């Protein structure tokens, strides 16, 4: 009897795992109807979505960042909100504010008018154009998934995901994101320029009548369920140890740090980097149809998980060192297993 129950439970678990993988693949296929290429970016966004993290998309204008996020909002059947960050954008413009309202009896009272943050998928477009004050308005929402106005907390409906974009080349009149805010992004994904085939596809899709209507694949509840299931995927001790050593290796004063990190890094990744590695690894394993996280899973997610958490020193910034290169160096120099 017990064995039968176990088998049934195993079957159910296998079905859940398979459903997660299937749903994510369906989501990817649906998004790819609107977005040409950028498969890794889409996968990263979905991983962040299922892991409950936020994504910072970086790329030059015109590469489809906004379209990607809008497409995601459409296929997820979630409340989508777009905030175009500008230098004069104020926190209240994002969070919302108390306004004086008059009721039928003529009495006036303050009523909280929700800002665009009250959505499930937030597109923070060109987030680095807003002032740090406005950028910091996102901090509490991103971490606590709630905002506090006039001492009154307002919870944001799950699932809540912020997809911010920033332009790396137009630095004039921009405000680089503070480290605290960068650390709150689960992944930082670079949207690269499409290949010639992809470009041709983009041209075809955008210069003709677009008949591809995106369908809702999953809803918020399903995403929450997937989020729960992903966390059950076991991670072996030595794999966790590897993730931890990778994070520590980004610190210049760590014994694990490679020479590049020691020379050009001012601050390394926070513990959120390790969380990101392990959760992302779990998601990668599930997408690969496995139930255990491998070193390869950790490695594959390391660059988007860690690069925005590494703060270069002056020498590194002056030398134009890419954080991704430092992470690559860390991956190369950190052994998977350390003999006791």
């Amino acid at each position: 009897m017990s064995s039968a129950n176990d088998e049934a439970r195993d079957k159910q678990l296998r079905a859940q795992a398979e459903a997660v993988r299937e749903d994510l693949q369906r989501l990817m296929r649906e998004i790819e109807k609107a977005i040409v290429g950028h498969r890794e970016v889409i996968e990263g966004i979905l991983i962040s979505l299922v892991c409950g993290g936020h994504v910072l998309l970086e790329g030059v204008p015109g590469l489809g960042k906004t379209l990607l996020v809008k497409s995601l909002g459409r296929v997820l059947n979630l409340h989508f909100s777009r905030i175009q960050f500008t230098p004069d954008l104020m926190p209240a413009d994002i969070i919302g504010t108390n306004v004086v309202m008059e009721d039928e009896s003529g009495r006036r009272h303050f009523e909280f008018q929700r800002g665009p943050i009250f959505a499930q998928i937030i597109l923070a477009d060109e987030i680095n154009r807003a002032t740090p004050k406005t950028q910091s308005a996102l901090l509490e929402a991103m971490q606590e998934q709630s905002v506090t106005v006039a001492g009154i907390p307002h919870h944001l409906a799950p699932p809540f995901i912020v997809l911010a974009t920033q332009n790396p080349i137009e630095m004039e009149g921009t405000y680089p994101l503070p480290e605290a805010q960068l650390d709150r992004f689960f992944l930082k994904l670079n949207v690269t320029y499409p290949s010639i085939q992809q470009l041709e596809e983009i041209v075809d899709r955008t210069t003709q009548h677009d008949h591809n209507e995106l369908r809702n694949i999953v809803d918020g509840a399903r995403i929450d369920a997937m989020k729960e299931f992903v966390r059950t995927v076991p991670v072996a001790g030595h794999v966790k140890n590897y993730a931890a050593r990778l994070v520590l290796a980004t610190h210049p004063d760590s014994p694990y740090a490679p020479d590049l990190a020691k020379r050009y890094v001012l601050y390394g990744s926070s513990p959120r980097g390790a969380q990101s590695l392990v959760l992302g690894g779990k998601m990668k394993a599930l997408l690969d149809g496995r139930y255990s996280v491998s070193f390869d899973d950790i490695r594959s997610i390391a660059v988007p998980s860690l690069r925005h958490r590494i703060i270069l020193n002056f020498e590194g910034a002056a030398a134009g060192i890419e954080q991704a290169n430092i992470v690559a160096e860390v991956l190369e120099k950190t052994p998977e297993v350390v003999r006791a």
Partner: protein
Amino acid sequence: MDSEEILHRTARILVRRARWVRGRALLFNALFVGLCLWVALAIWHRFVPLPIGRLMEAGLALMGLSVLGALVMGLRSRADPMGLLISADRTLKLKERLSTAYELIQSSSSHPLRSIVLQEAARVARSVNPFRVVPTTTPRTLRWTPFLLLALILVLMVDFSDVLPTALVGRDERANPELFEQGKKLERLGKRLETEARQRGLERSLEAARRMQNLGQRLQHEKVNERDAMARVNSLSEYVRNLEDELRKMSVLEDVSLGKVREVMVNQANVTGEVQRLLAMLSRGKLSAGELRHLQERMQNLHQQGGLDERLSEALSQLRAGDLEGAREILENFLLQDQLAQDFEHLKRAERALERGFEQNLEMGDGTDFDYPSGEAGEYGDDEMEGDVRAGSGGPPGDFEGGDYLDAEGTGSNSSVGTGRGTDSETSRSRIAETNAPATKITGQSGEGGVRRTYVRALPLKADPSIPLEEVIATYQRRAEESLLREEIPPRNREIVKAYFLSIGLVEESGGSEGKDEQRER
């Protein structure tokens, strides 16, 4: 078999395989370490030499100890199943399925996906090949083995003393303990020989003893070529053995000559006295039967002792025949002839001594080095010994290599000691014959040369009479002559020696050669 059991079995297989591979590697490493130690020992051997047999034994012992240590380490080593499964995951690209599942098995807390993870692990565990996960590897250190073997051979076989400076090669004062011991032994033997030679007044043996000591000290303290040194030691050992034999024989002969021969001389005197006593008995005239029988017994006894020649046999026959007068006459003649023979022998020896002294004086001249006796043609080389070739009948003994002792003889008629190598054996024999006395030939092996034959005039009587001074003075004179013959006499002292002999009345000063001729005629 459930998933957990499959996983355990896989872990056990890997553990067994890992232990075997580790044990093999340890064994190789132990052999390598043992070889290294052996090389180190061989290098040490170049500075502080060991017998080669002991070196081999020590090297084998070190190798054995290394292997034993490896066995102990191999038995004590424990392979970590988790590490092996991680290795299997990585080698076979199993995406950490095995290690994650094994960790879940080992964990006490339950996990919702435990069963699925174990099933996945069991599925891939069947394809685990332990030979791929834990491949048989040869320790990289083994590639140095040929070089080590070569180094070992070089260190043991090649003599670097010609190539490297002495400071690097080391002060090989005790290059070989065996040589050192041999050197000590040689020095000790040399000292002993020196003492004996000094006691016996053997100059040549004394010189040999000093050379032995010198060589012994060199063997102890100098760096020498081992092979040459061993050859020298062997040759010298042979030499020492021969010398010892020689000394022993000399000792025997000396016993004969200095003790027994003196006894012979004394007994010879006793024979004369006995003959005189018998003659006195015969001179009394008529003898009773008992006296006659007693007289016959005493003559018979004298005859059996060998102290009498055929003349006394004839006298005995006469006595038995009852011819007392005839016997008395024979005995009187015997006494007279014996006295004449002794006198003649004394004169002959003195003459020979003087002649030899003059001859040497003529041959050597004034610049002669008197440190060495005449006839010394060889020198003890550093690497080999050469026997001295001494000519002349008066030369001291001492050559043991290449020497021919056949027909060698002594010149002393009464001392009967063969103290040199004669070159003219016929002459020597004639000299022996001149003594006109019964001689006993003693033949013995002496050194490498051959057989030494020495003539002793007579065997001693069993009687032990007292020795009157006037009877042994002639012996002392002869010994003095022998000593003079053995030693170099400076030319300017020849006359003194001659004067000495003149003073004792053996040769008349004015007689010169004529005197000698007269004595020869006598």
